[in-house]
């Protein structure tokens, strides 16, 4: 079994008021020196069976058509080896 992680972020030119609200709260919490915060989404897909090229291609298609709206968002797809992580 493998985990595929899809990260979705608003495109750089799109205003992110949530990220700005987080950034403005930082000084109140004693965190200085953070000039910008942008908030995104992370999807963790637990995939049965091997994540081969065709499985990855399908996940890419899923991310492009559904998990992200590419009019306003960019996304990345990464494979995480769950077993290797558990063994650490």
């Amino acid at each position, binding site marked *: 079994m493998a985990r595929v992680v899809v990260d979705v972020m608003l495109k750089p030119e799109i205003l992110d*008021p949530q990220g700005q609200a987080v950034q403005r709260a930082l000084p109140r919490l004693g965190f200085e020196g953070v000039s910008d915060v942008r908030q995104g989404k992370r999807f963790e897909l637990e995939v049965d069976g091997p994540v081969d090229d065709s499985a990855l291609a399908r996940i890419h298609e899923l991310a492009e058509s559904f998990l992200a709206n590419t*009019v*306003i968002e960019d996304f990345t797809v990464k494979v995480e080896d769950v077993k290797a992580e558990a063994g650490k």
Partner: protein
Amino acid sequence: MTARIGVVTFPGSLDDRDTQRAIRLAGAEPVALWHKDKDLKQVDAVVLPGGFSYGDYLRAGAISRFSPVMETVIEQAKSGMPVLGICNGFQVLTEAHLLPGAMLGNNHLHFICRDQKLRVENAETAWTADYESGQEIHVPLKNMDGRYVADERTLDMLEAEGRVAFRYVDFNPNGSLRDIAGITNEAGNVVGLMPHPEHAVEPLIGSGRTDGLPFFTSILKKLVNA
């Protein structure tokens, strides 16, 4: 014979009944459509109403866009059937790429509910023919994700082609680019807007104005005269 106008109910739709009522007041026959049903019951036009379909999970309109009913709506809209998306319905139309751009959270991060002044910029669509171009109207607005965004090229194209159908006047309630409140597709059969014309159809309720009624009389005239 009058026109039959379908109103889709998704899980989480709120304004489907008000929309049916507005259609009836305009003199057309409202037909309830169900999100799981591909069959549009031979309606002449479809309204996607306001609400929080599928809880607005993922993105507003993102899951509804893949519902069985939308499969048929998308197909028919592309071949000319009039479709109006109000609020959440507008979000569904952008997610379905029947209209360009996308809807995001209000720039001030708050839900907003107010009587909103709009200018009708395009009185030639299937849903706006009973207005005058440049006419100013008041209809209720209530949303969380009302910020219309698109890239500069798309915005310029919409302006150049007269596809900005409605613009906010005096006050931009959500940070929408270029004060855009509603747009139309190239053919003028698909229209989406954030404010709620179906809540402004009777003098006794809401703002006491009937500024929203022409949406529904426009489409009725178009269908009956067709």
